């Protein structure tokens, strides 16, 4: 299958006081279309930075990031915004919905910035809401929904633009384990429907849903192997 993401020697350095922190220290990897990847690692391993870079929220200090054949690593703010809008669907640990807007408007929001006309936008948003099973709750505000429902809204918002990647950062971190499993089942189903999913998590249970696990430590890739297998030191990538 076609290559979607190619990271080549990505380095990200933060200046903290007088010290330079190498959050990412030479990451090279490829992800293909319709892969189901979990990025794992302890806190401080660089997985958040990795997610920000893959999600085009941040740019690397050096290295090359190609997304769908575009060189993303030296785009400006507005170009990155357009790429995020078109290519990336974010699902955050804390849901990050707009509290004053109802479900429909929250899901519509990415399409508003995509410049889609109102009627088409509404149709697409309703479709996405139906996909996560919240049609009945369409006109509710986020604070009238349970945690699981809020995360479903967030997933619908991520899906609505038909992005290349669903990028989920600890998507079950704020949910109880039963609700978490439901959300993961939804991701599994979305993967079967052809979506590319990247999970960032530190939980083995969650990561085990993915088909490929990339382990990070100190800004470097420590392991890259298929899921439900014993970790092997050599990268078993499908490159």
């Amino acid at each position, binding site marked *: 299958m076609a290559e979607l993401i190619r990271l080549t020697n990505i380095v990200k350095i933060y200046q903290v006081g007088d010290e330079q922190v190498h959050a990412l220290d030479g990451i090279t990897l490829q992800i293909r279309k319709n892969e189901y990847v979990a990025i794992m690692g302890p806190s401080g391993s660089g997985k958040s930075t990795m997610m920000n870079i893959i999600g085009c*929220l941040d740019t690397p200090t050096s290295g090359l990031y190609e997304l769908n054949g575009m060189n993303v690593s030296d785009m400006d*703010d*507005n170009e990155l*915004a*357009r790429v*995020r809008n078109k290519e990336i669907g974010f699902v955050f640990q804390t849901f990050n*919905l*707009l509290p004053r807007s109802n479900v429909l408007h929250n899901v519509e929001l990415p399409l508003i*910035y995509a410049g889609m006309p109102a009627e088409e*936008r509404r149709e697409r948003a309703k479709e996405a809401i139906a996909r996560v099973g919240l049609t009945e709750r369409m006109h509710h505000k986020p604070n009238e929904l349970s945690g699981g429902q809020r995360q479903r809204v967030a997933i619908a918002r991520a899906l609505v633009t038909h992005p290349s990647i669903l990028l989920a950062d600890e998507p079950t971190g704020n949910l109880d384990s039963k609700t978490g499993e439901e959300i993961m089942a939804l991701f599994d189903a979305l993967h079967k429907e052809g979506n590319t999913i990247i999970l960032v998590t530190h939980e083995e249970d969650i990561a085990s849903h993915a088909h490929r696990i990339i382990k990070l430590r100190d800004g470097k890739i420590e392991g890259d192997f298929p899921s439900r297998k014993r970790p092997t030191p050599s990268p078993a990538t499908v490159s």
Partner: protein
Amino acid sequence: MVTINELQEGFRIALQSIWANRMRSALTTLGIVIGIVSVTLMGTALEGLSRAFDKSIAQIGADVLYVQKWPWGGGQDWWKYRNRRDLRIEHANAIERSAELVASLSPIIGTSQDIKYQGKYIEDVIVVGTTHTMIETNPANLAIGRFFSRSESEGGRPVCVIGSEIASSLFPNESPLEKVIKIGGYAYRVVGVFEKQGSLFGGESLDKRIYVPINRFFTQYQSRRGGITIMVKAKSLDLLDDTKEEVRGILRRARGLKPRDEDDFSINQQEMIIQIFNQIGGVIAIIGLFITGLSLFVGGIGIMNIMFVSVTERTKEIGIRKAIGAPRRAILLQFLIESSLICFLGGIIGIAIAFPLSLIVDQILPTAMPLTIVGIALSLSLLVGLLSGIIPAYRASKLDPVEALRYE
């Protein structure tokens, strides 16, 4: 390019945010409200002054020259004008004899007298001595009767034409014509009544005047036959300047001035008053603009301050919007719309307050709030909103999405 979607979303968020913080928004926009109230009331008052002025100035007549000892509006050289020789009837006659561009000419002189008719008194009435030509020189119409005739004028007959206010006070239930009234103790027969004219520059009423033949005036109220004003009506407005020059030449000769001597008289005209008025109006407008500008400036700072608060409060929201693909300009627009809308609402509230106040002003000055002032006030409030929103909005648009998302 800004899309319609972004505009709609901007308005939606702005309204949502203003409504959610209605108390704060209302207090913030108070400065703008005060600014707009003052700008509209100022404009209304100026409009009133201007209307009152226009009404008065019409009574002076654009095509009439006033030859006098004193210039209008020139106060500096008081002693110089004080020592000028009086204008006398002979001077008026000299102009009448040789001027070709003059349509009509009337000497006038005034005094204040008490008048009496069958036990009714009116004190301090302006009595104007003039000739029969007055009715052509002065653009006022008679309601009933006639003006005094040439022979009555030259013969100094005891006849008079009275203003409408005097007519209604002295003769509430009868026709004033052919009645004999006492003016300063001397008897006069009423031959005509003027139409209602109103007052000059909000001062004494033109309807409380009496016109008598000037020759009688000099025998009864003032034996010194000088100190008159000569009203000169030009044949047409276009010829006003030529007429002025002609009158000037005749007068200089009549008064024996040598070529190098300065004029020892002044030829006044309506335009001079207009100039003076425009000067005064300009000064008032500048002072008003300054005060208004100051209050709008202070209001604008208040708006800027609250917009900084709003941006900080909504850092997380900005982060979310950026993460799902809002470009910088959409964030910029969102906050600019919010600040402009707050100010615009302030402008509308300001006008809503100023309008009833302008009706009160109307009791003093005949005026109405001009639509242009309403337009200017609203655009001004919008402009203040835009200007005071720029820096906070720019700061919001520059926020780093990663940090904004992390903000709690």
